[in-house]
């Protein structure tokens, strides 16, 4: 549970302290503290509406905190100007909860877009990488389709491909497997794990696929009432006797019809 214990061997990619943010008197982030070690997968779980998406959007400063600090690779980012922000954001790849694909572009153009706009790769290299990434998420040959012509699950995988294709240092995935069938869920999990290992990147995953997602997680954070109520390795968190977490796991598992797998 003590996140500092792991920090000895690996530096922290992200350090968040006392992060607060409210919308119209609703305290969504209520003093969030968390360290995310570089080169790990950290999974954030918690009930719907507890502020997971809002938290992710603070990490790349899509939303600005009311107070608190966020340190990315040793740089305090909450007070950066536009130029500094861009250099921080270029480290991130983000999968939005709803995909956020550009609906005026085909899937292929969506995935190649960040490469075309932000890199100096040759057309051939870009093409090669886009095809490889589309194949990895199981969308080979679908490049010509437009987002509106695809199912929600396919859109999610296309959006994942767009987040992965730039090989970012930090990958943020907001519910990458919600809406996918169990087979797809497993293969996406494996893809995230493999990408993370191949490039040694840091991943922050928000997921409701508890406990399957724990198999690819190094660390788990349980978010509740606007804070990280539990943070630690999978084993530490699963063996904790936090009442809220137990209730969350039980509710989650029974809701998903997965009683057999509940660890309690």
């Amino acid at each position, binding site marked *: 549970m003590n996140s500092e214990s792991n920090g000895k061997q690996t530096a922290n990619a992200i350090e968040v302290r006392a992060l607060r943010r409210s919308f119209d008197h609703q305290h969504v982030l209520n003093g969030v503290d968390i360290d995310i070690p570089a080169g790990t997968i950290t999974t954030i779980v918690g009930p719907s509406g507890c502020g997971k998406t809002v938290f992710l959007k603070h990490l790349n400063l899509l939303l600005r905190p009311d107070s608190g600090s966020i340190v990315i690779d040793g740089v305090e980012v909450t007070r950066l100007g536009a130029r500094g922000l861009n250099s921080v954001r270029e480290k991130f790849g983000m999968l939005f909860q709803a995909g956020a694909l550009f*609906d005026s572009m085909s899937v292929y153009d969506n995935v190649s877009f960040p490469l075309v706009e932000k890199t100096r790769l040759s057309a051939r290299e870009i093409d090669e990488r886009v095809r490889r990434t589309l194949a990895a998420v199981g969308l080979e040959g679908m490049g010509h389709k437009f987002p509106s012509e695809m199912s929600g699950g396919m859109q999610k995988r296309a959006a994942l491909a767009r987040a992965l294709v730039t090989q970012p240092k930090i990958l943020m995935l907001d519910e990458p497997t919600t809406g996918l069938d169990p087979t797809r869920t497993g293969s996406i999990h494996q893809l995230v794990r493999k990408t993370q290992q191949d490039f040694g990147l840091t991943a922050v995953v928000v997921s409701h696929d508890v406990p399957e997602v724990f198999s690819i997680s190094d660390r788990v954070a349980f978010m509740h009432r606007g804070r990280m109520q539990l943070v630690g390795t999978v084993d530490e968190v699963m063996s904790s006797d936090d009442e809220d977490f137990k209730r969350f796991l039980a509710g989650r598992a029974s809701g998903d019809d997965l009683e057999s797998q509940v660890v309690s």
Partner: protein
Amino acid sequence: MQVVEFIERVGAYILDSILALGNFALFLIRSLMYAVLPPYKLRLTLRQIRIIGAESLMLIVLISTFTGMVLGLQGYHTLHLFGAEDSLGTLVGLALVRELGPVLAALMIAARAGSAMAAELGSMQASEQIDALTVMAINPVQYLVSPRMIAGVVSFPILTVIFNVIGIWAGYAVGCGLLGASGGAYFNNLAANMSRHDVALTLYKALVFGVVVMSVCCYKGYHAKRMATGVSRATTEAVVLSSVLVLAWDYFMGSILL
């Protein structure tokens, strides 16, 4: 109590308005700044010129034809009362070049392309596509708004000038072809009375209206609320506000420049 509440509400409204105006001014300045600063979004700009300008051409042809015909008809009957039919060309031409061409063209483009633009940007905002640009470290104002501003600044004068020319010919067709005003006098009087200032005025107005309509429609779409009704609200407000601003600004410029 009620009085205090009322005054508070008026105060809040005024503060909100000032804030909104400030935000709009910032948005306008940023979009114009990014339009002149590299990297230039040439392909996006060309695409927008096609959508805003070229694809509005048929509508402009239609509206300008009818406007010119109505001016020719009413102008002839009125001037006929004073035996001044020879001035018909001046009447139709100057009315079009100084006022109706820029204003009607701007209103038509706002209704056709401006509304579509507000809806497009609004749905991009609602589905987080604008946020997706931001997290890719791509400036959404530079990527989405500036090309549309440039396209407006290019398209509005072109469409306005086409509006003027077609309107003048349509007025000629009705006034001289159907009603019997003198064709030679129509063009001679117009040529004698239309100066380079009038042509400059029509271009200048079109340019300003281009900036007004594009910036209002982009602003409304860009800041659409993420609700079911957010996009439709943004679209309506964009068209209404840009039309009102065009008419108000036209009167304002007219009273200063003439």
